[in-house]
């Protein structure tokens, strides 16, 4: 089971937690990426984030997420994968992304989560614009 969503409203883990249920899975793992207040730059300077805004090439992002979910299912013998990414404004302390997966044994679920996040952050056409405490804004293009 694969569930991919781009949403404009807050992501609540409780709304999604039952989506990966499966009687033959013994391991459920979740990751939520949350808007953080402080970012330390490469130069060691601490920047204070006020809010984040996410933009996507939506149809391509959905396709890329579907592809990487399918690859994760095969590679890690997962029973289910759910990936939810929020777009638009994401206030401090709220989740921008939620990834969940279930597998028979915990090693697979533990390995799948970082793999999915690494791929998502490398290839899925979604961009973050930070608004800092001084109201300056910056698109993040790592």
């Amino acid at each position, binding site marked *: 089971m694969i569930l991919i969503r781009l949403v404009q409203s807050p992501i609540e883990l409780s709304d999604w937690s039952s989506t990966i249920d499966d009687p033959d899975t013994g391991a459920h793992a979740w990751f939520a*990426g949350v808007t953080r207040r402080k970012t330390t730059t490469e130069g060691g300077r601490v920047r204070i984030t006020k809010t984040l805004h*996410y*933009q*996507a*090439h939506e*149809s*391509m*992002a959905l*396709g*890329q997420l579907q592809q990487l979910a399918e690859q994760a299912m095969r590679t890690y013998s997962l029973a289910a994968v759910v990936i939810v*990414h929020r777009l638009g404004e994401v206030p401090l302390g709220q989740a*921008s*992304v939620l990834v969940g997966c279930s597998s028979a044994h915990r090693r697979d679920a533990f390995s799948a989560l970082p793999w999915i*996040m690494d791929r*998502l*952050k*490398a*290839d*899925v*056409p*979604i*961009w*973050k*614009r930070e608004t800092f405490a001084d109201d300056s804004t910056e*698109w*993040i*293009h*790592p």
Partner: protein
Amino acid sequence: MQILLFAGVRDAAGCDVIEVTVDPPATAAMLIDAVAAQVPAAAQLIGVSRLAVDGQYVAGDHVVERGDAELALIPPVSGG
């Protein structure tokens, strides 16, 4: 050909889509260079961007055919 723009490139260009003209056969790299020439303020960012054809990344030497394929310029992503 029309190319969709996003994030920092979109802001620098001031538009969501840009029209570029290159002599066929047009490779992805040629199209990216053409966008950079039209949006010099973002030339560096465009130089590290990838081209996607119908939602799939293509290599620089990929030849883009005229037609109704969707072209998008994908600067380095920062989702998650």
